[in-house]
C-alpha cells in the first residue's frame, strides 16, 4: 500500500519538480518568468502532437522541450533585448500559451495518447521496495532526478554557475567584469523554457496520456511558488514538490478511507502545508536573503 502511494506521489511531483528546477535557474540569473504555465501547456500540446504523429514518445518529449524553448526565446527577446516589463510579459506568455495550445490541439481532442513506457533499470530495480518505487519508472522521472543533480552541481560547483549567480545578484558588477549579462540571462531563460516544456510533455505523455485544453490546470503557478518556497535551493525544490504531491495524493486516500473530514478542507491541505513550510523557512531571514537573487526582476540595459 505504502509503495503504491509513493508511486503515485512521484508521478504527481515530477512535472512540478521539472518546471520548478527550470524556473529556479531562470530566477537565479535575475529574471522572473511568470509564463511557466504557458510554456508548460505548449510543451504538453506539442509533445502530444509529435508523439502522436511520429509514434515515438522520445520524439514527443524532445518536441515538448523545443516548444518550451521557443516560447521562452520569445519571452527572453522581449524582456532582455527590448527591456519590457517582466511581470506583464510573463503573464502574457501564459495567456498566449493557453490560447495557442488550444488552437494547435484542436485536431487532437478525443485522440488517445501514447504512454511513455516504463523503463526498468537493471539490478537496481530488483532491490525490494526501493527498486519498484525509484527504478521502475518512465524515462522522464529519471530525467527529473538527473536534473536535480545537474542543477545543484552546476549552480554551486562550477564557474558557469558562479557567473550565473553573479549576474542574478549584481548585474552591474557582472557587466563591469566583462560578462555578458543579457547572454547569460537569455540562456537561463531558454533552459527554464525547456524544463517547463518537458514538464508539460510529462503531463500529456506520462501522467495522463491525452490532450485536453488547459490540462496543466495551474501547475505552472505551483511550480513558480515552489521556487520561492525552496528559497532558490534545488534540493528544497525536490522536498517541496514531493511534499505537495504527497499531500495531494494522501487527501484522496483519506477520503477513500472515509475519515469524514470535509473534502474542501482536504483539498486546501497541499496549499496550507506549503504556506506553513514557507513561514517556517522565512523565519530565518538571513538565510533567505543570502539565497534570494538580489537583481530578481530588475531589467538590465547596458550603457554602451
Amino acid at each position, binding site marked *: 500500500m505504502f509503495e503504491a502511494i509513493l508511486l503515485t506521489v512521484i508521478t504527481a511531483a515530477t512535472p512540478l519538480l521539472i518546471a520548478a528546477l527550470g524556473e529556479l535557474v531562470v530566477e537565479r540569473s535575475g529574471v522572473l518568468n511568470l509564463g511557466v504555465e504557458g510554456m508548460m501547456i505548449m510543451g504538453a500540446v506539442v509533445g502530444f502532437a509529435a508523439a502522436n504523429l511520429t509514434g515515438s514518445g522520445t520524439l514527443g518529449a524532445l518536441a515538448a522541450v523545443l516548444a518550451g524553448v521557443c516560447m521562452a526565446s520569445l519571452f527572453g527577446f522581449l524582456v532582455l533585448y527590448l527591456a519590457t516589463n517582466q511581470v506583464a510579459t510573463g503573464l502574457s506568455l501564459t495567456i498566449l500559451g493557453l490560447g495557442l495550445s488550444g488552437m494547435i490541439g484542436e485536431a487532437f481532442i478525443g485522440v488517445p495518447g501514447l504512454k511513455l513506457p516504463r523503463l526498468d533499470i537493471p539490478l537496481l530495480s530488483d532491490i525490494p521496495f526501493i527498486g519498484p518505487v525509484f527504478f521502475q519508472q518512465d524515462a522522464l522521472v529519471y530525467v527529473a532526478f538527473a536534473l536535480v543533480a545537474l542543477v545543484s552541481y552546476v549552480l554551486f560547483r562550477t564557474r558557469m554557475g558562479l557567473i550565473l549567480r553573479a549576474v542574478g545578484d549584481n548585474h552591474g558588477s557582472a557587466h563591469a567584469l566583462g560578462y555578458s549579462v543579457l547572454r547569460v540571462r537569455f540562456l537561463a531563460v531558454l533552459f527554464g523554457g525547456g524544463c517547463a516544456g518537458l514538464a508539460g510533455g510529462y503531463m500529456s505523455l506520462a501522467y495522463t496520456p491525452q490532450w*485536453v485544453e488547459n490540462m496543466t490546470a495551474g501547475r505552472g503557478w505551483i511550480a513558480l511558488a515552489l521556487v520561492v518556497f525552496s528559497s532558490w535551493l534545488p534540493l528544497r525544490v525536490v522536498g517541496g514538490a514531493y511534499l505537495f504531491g504527497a499531500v495531494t495524493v494522501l487527501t484522496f486516500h483519506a477520503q477513500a478511507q472515509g475519515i469524514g473530514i470535509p473534502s474542501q478542507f482536504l*483539498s486546501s491541505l497541499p496549499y496550507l502545508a506549503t504556506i506553513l513550510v514557507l513561514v517556517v523557512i522565512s523565519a530565518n531571514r538571513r538565510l533567505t536573503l543570502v539565497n534570494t537573487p538580489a537583481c530578481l526582476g530588475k531589467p538590465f540595459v547596458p550603457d554602451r
Partner: protein
Amino acid sequence: MKNLLKATAAAAVFTAMAGAAHAADVKACWVYVGPVGDFGWTYQHDQGRQAVVAEFGDKVETAFLESVPEGPDAERAIERFARDGCDIVFTTSFGYMNPTVKVAKKYPDVKFEHATGYKSADNLATYNSKFHEGRYIIGQIAGKMSKTGVAGYITSFPIPEVISGINAFMLGAQTVNPDFKVKVVWANTWFDPAKEADAAKALADQGVDIMVQHTDSTAPLQVAQERGIHGFGQASDMIAFAPKSQYTAIIDEWGPYYIERIKEVMEGTWETKQTWSGLAEGHVVMAPYTNLPDDVVAMAKETEAKISGGWEPFTGPIFNQEGEKVVEDGVTLEDGAILGMDWYVQGVDDKLSK
C-alpha cells in the same frame, strides 16, 4: 492621423460587409464555462451547436465564448451577446444563473436559455437533462460486474445534480447487490485531468474494481484501464481512451434540444418553459455496452427501456442514511425534490457537510 482614419473607415466597411454576408434568419449564441476542447461538458454543448449548424446551414449564424468564468465576467459576456444582435443566447453552466436573469431583464426582446438552473422569466427558459437516469443503469451494471462489491466514485462538487447521481447509482447497484459499497472521493474540480488521475489511482490502490466519475476528463478511465479494472465514461463516449475498460458512458446529447428551440425562434413560436428530459427524449444517451456479458447487457437495455417508458429511478421505498423511509412504497419523488437533492440514500459511505 490620416492613416488611422483610413484604417478605421476600411474596418467599418469591412465590418458592414461581414455583417451583410451573414444575413441569417437567426443568430444563436452560446456561453461556455470550459474550453470547447475539454472532451466533456463544454465539448458536448459545442457538439450541439455544430448539430444546429449542420441542420440549418446558412439560415442560422452561431457564435460562442468559451472558458467564461462564473461571476462578473459572465454577465459581461452574456450582455455582449445580447447587444451584438443574438436572437437567442444559451448559457451553459449553473453559475451563470443570476447573471443570465439580470441580462434577460435588460433585454426583453432577446431570448435566453439557461442550462441546469431553476430561475426563469418570460424571455428566459431553463433546460437540463435527467443524468441520474443513466446513473441508475450504470449502478446496476456495477452491482452485477463488481467482484469486490466496492465502487470508487470521483466527484466534483456537492451540488444536487452530483448527489442525485450518486444516489441513483447506489439505488441501481442495490437492486442487484444489497450490500454494495461506494467510496466517494471529492476532487473539488470539474476538470483537472492529473488530479482526477490521482484520485483514481488512490481508489484503485484501495481495492475498488469499478470506477465511476462525475468529473469531466478521461483520466480516471485511463487509470482504470491501466489497473485492469472497469469504469464508465462521462458526458461523452470515452471508449477510445479505454477500449478494454469502458462498460458504457452517459452521453449528454444537447443537439436535438438546440435544434428544436432555434426552430421555434425561426417560426416565432418560442415560449419560455422549463425542460427536464432524459433517456425518453434522447437528451441522455447510453453509449454502446461493451466488455459486458450478454445477460448484463440485456438487463441494462431492459432498464433503459423501462426508464424511457416513463419509470422514475427515484421511486420508493427509498431509505436515507439513517435508515428512515423518506419515500413511501410506490411513490415517485417529485422533480423539485430530485433537482434540489441534499441527502444520501442508505448505503452511501460518505458525509455531506452542510
